[in-house]
């Protein structure tokens, strides 16, 4: 008995009981759909994070005060015994670390900004002109911080678009004076609109020269130094160079840590990979339940067709012919269910981000292949027992079965 014939027999059996076959398949459809959809959401998050992190600028190195033993990850700058990173450290890097294109000092804090009678607390970044370049954040109107501003601790401020609109509305802010934590700053520029990144509103920030920022926050240390290399291949050598230069300035102690963008990406992707696997695993359980549904229906089907099995055996069907017939029936149920599940799952994965913008999805070939293989395997696994039961029927008993 050839495969095509067995397949036709199985297919006719499925079609002869459309409602039951449909409901059985529904279990597999929902399982496969859930696997694809949830994995797509997990991967969508991964793609989103990768895009956002690389969108900050490429080949970045972040130097923070304090030493951590692990590579990557986030940690607060430690206080106390740790020697601070200073503006001079950033200047030394800029001067001596020839592998770096930039070494941008950064202070970070909050200040109360006021214009006329409007005002509120605001994130303030103190930095240098090169910050635009390393973070891909550019000025829209007016001027950015200049090196002269940094050297002279100029009281100038650049506004993010959200801040500008809040304080000035449609009014031209350039040349206006705002108060920032009781000091007066002149607005010299407005940033280009950037939107949110990783849940943070990039437009809801103001920028001042790093030296003015240190004065504002009453500190002589930096929050971090952002460095960049021209090529990704230079990152490892640049790390060595940074360590060398900074340790010479810090009494030969490595009291700072260097994070690379790659390490950050790795950490995030690691976390999201686990999340995706967990989601896929949970969805896989529903696929397993679908498989049990197939086994259940196949057992009913074998019982119902006991007489048919007897007739076929009397007419010369071998055990393996009967086995194949029921196996293929189970596999067709799970296979067709799997295909429909893929179509529905991929369809939903493509449609959902259109309506729910916070839920990015990314459909990958491997999740489709995995879901389909798994559903086919479910068909085989849960088809074997009923099919064996059918094949081993005694023909005489089966013929007498009413």
């Amino acid at each position, binding site marked *: 008995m050839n495969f095509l014939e067995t397949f036709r027999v199985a297919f006719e*059996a499925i079609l002869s009981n459309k409602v039951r076959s449909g409901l059985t398949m529904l279990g597999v459809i929902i399982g496969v759909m859930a696997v694809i959809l949830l994995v797509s959401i997990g991967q969508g998050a991964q793609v989103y994070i990768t895009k956002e992190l690389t969108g900050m600028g490429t080949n970045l190195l972040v130097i923070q005060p304090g030493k951590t033993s692990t590579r990557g990850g986030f940690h607060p700058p430690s206080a106390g015994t740790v020697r601070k990173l200073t503006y001079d450290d950033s200047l030394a890097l800029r001067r001596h670390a020839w592998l770096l294109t930039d070494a941008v000092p950064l202070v970070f804090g909050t200040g109360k900004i006021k214009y006329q009678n409007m005002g509120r607390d605001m994130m303030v970044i103190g930095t240098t002109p090169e910050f635009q370049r390393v973070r891909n954040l550019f000025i829209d109107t007016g001027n950015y911080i200049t090196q002269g501003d940094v050297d002279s601790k100029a009281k100038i401020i650049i506004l993010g678009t959200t801040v500008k609109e809040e304080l000035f509305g449609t009014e031209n802010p350039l040349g206006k004076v705002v108060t920032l934590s009781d000091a007066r700053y002149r607005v010299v520029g407005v940033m280009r609109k950037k939107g949110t990144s990783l849940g943070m509103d990039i437009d809801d920030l103001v920028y001042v020269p790093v030296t003015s920022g240190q004065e504002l926050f009453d500190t002589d240390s930096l929050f971090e130094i952002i460095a960049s290399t021209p090529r990704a291949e230079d990152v490892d050598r640049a790390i060595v160079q940074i360590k060398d230069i900074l340790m010479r300035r810090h009494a030969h102690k490595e009291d700072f840590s260097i994070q690379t963008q790659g390490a950050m990406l790795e950490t995030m992707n690691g976390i999201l990979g686990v999340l995706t696997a967990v989601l896929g695993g949970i969805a896989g359980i529903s696929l397993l339940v679908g498989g049990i549904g197939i086994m259940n229906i196949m057992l009913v089907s074998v019982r119902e067709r006991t007489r048919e099995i007897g007739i076929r055996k*009397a*007419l*010369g069907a*071998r055990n393996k012919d009967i086995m194949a017939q029921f196996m293929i029936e189970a596999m067709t149920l799970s296979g067709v269910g799997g295909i429909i599940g893929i179509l529905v799952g991929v369809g939903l994965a493509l449609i959902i981000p259109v309506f729910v913008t916070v839920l990015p999805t990314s459909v990958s070939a491997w999740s489709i292949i995995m879901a389909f293989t798994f559903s086919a395997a479910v068909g085989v696994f849960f088809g074997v027992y009923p099919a064996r039961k059918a094949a081993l029927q005694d023909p005489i008993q089966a013929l007498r079965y009413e």
Partner: protein
Amino acid sequence: MIDLSNITRTYRMGEVDITVLSGVSMSVQKGELIAIMGPSGSGKSTLMNILGCLDRPTSGVYRFEDREISALTDDELASIRNVKIGFVFQTFNLLPRFSALKNVEVPLIYSNVPASQRRQRAIPLLKQVGLEERMHHKPTELSGGQQQRVAIARALVNHPPLLLADEPTGNLDSRSGVEILNIITDLNKQGVTVIIVTHDQNVAARCKRVIEVKDGQIINDTVRA
């Protein structure tokens, strides 16, 4: 063609063994037309199952065309049923979802005949039993007599040398019964060996040789002149 010697068949029912056939010996020559008669419970159905290679004897030797049956595997028995034996049952035993034509084709599926040839071989047999106009009907759309004719066409599709009929007229009205018997005796005249299990005297009257079974033993084996 068939040689049974000292066939015994026992079933185990819980703790007790029930002997259904004990020491049955008989032989069948090619081209014979035989009726096996006996009351229900006499063991004639079990004898039929053993003859049809659906069952194996507990002891004794069954030789079919010089092959020892009890030594064969399940698959080899299936192949003998497929090629060497045609079955006609009291309850027709057609597959309800398939048309008459498809039903006749079923044995050919298991002897690996390609689909196109199956059709070509099935149609003449349906003509032979007078059902060419109804070959696309399903069993439920056919009368009992017509269903039994489909079953006969199916039994013959692989041109087996032996036809086993188990009460072939038992579920039919007398007119259809006679028609079916005519078809079967015609086949015998064409050279097919036929064994009919029946308790109908009218059926037995048409057979040259009548074997009577009672309590698991052959009590009478007569050949009419």
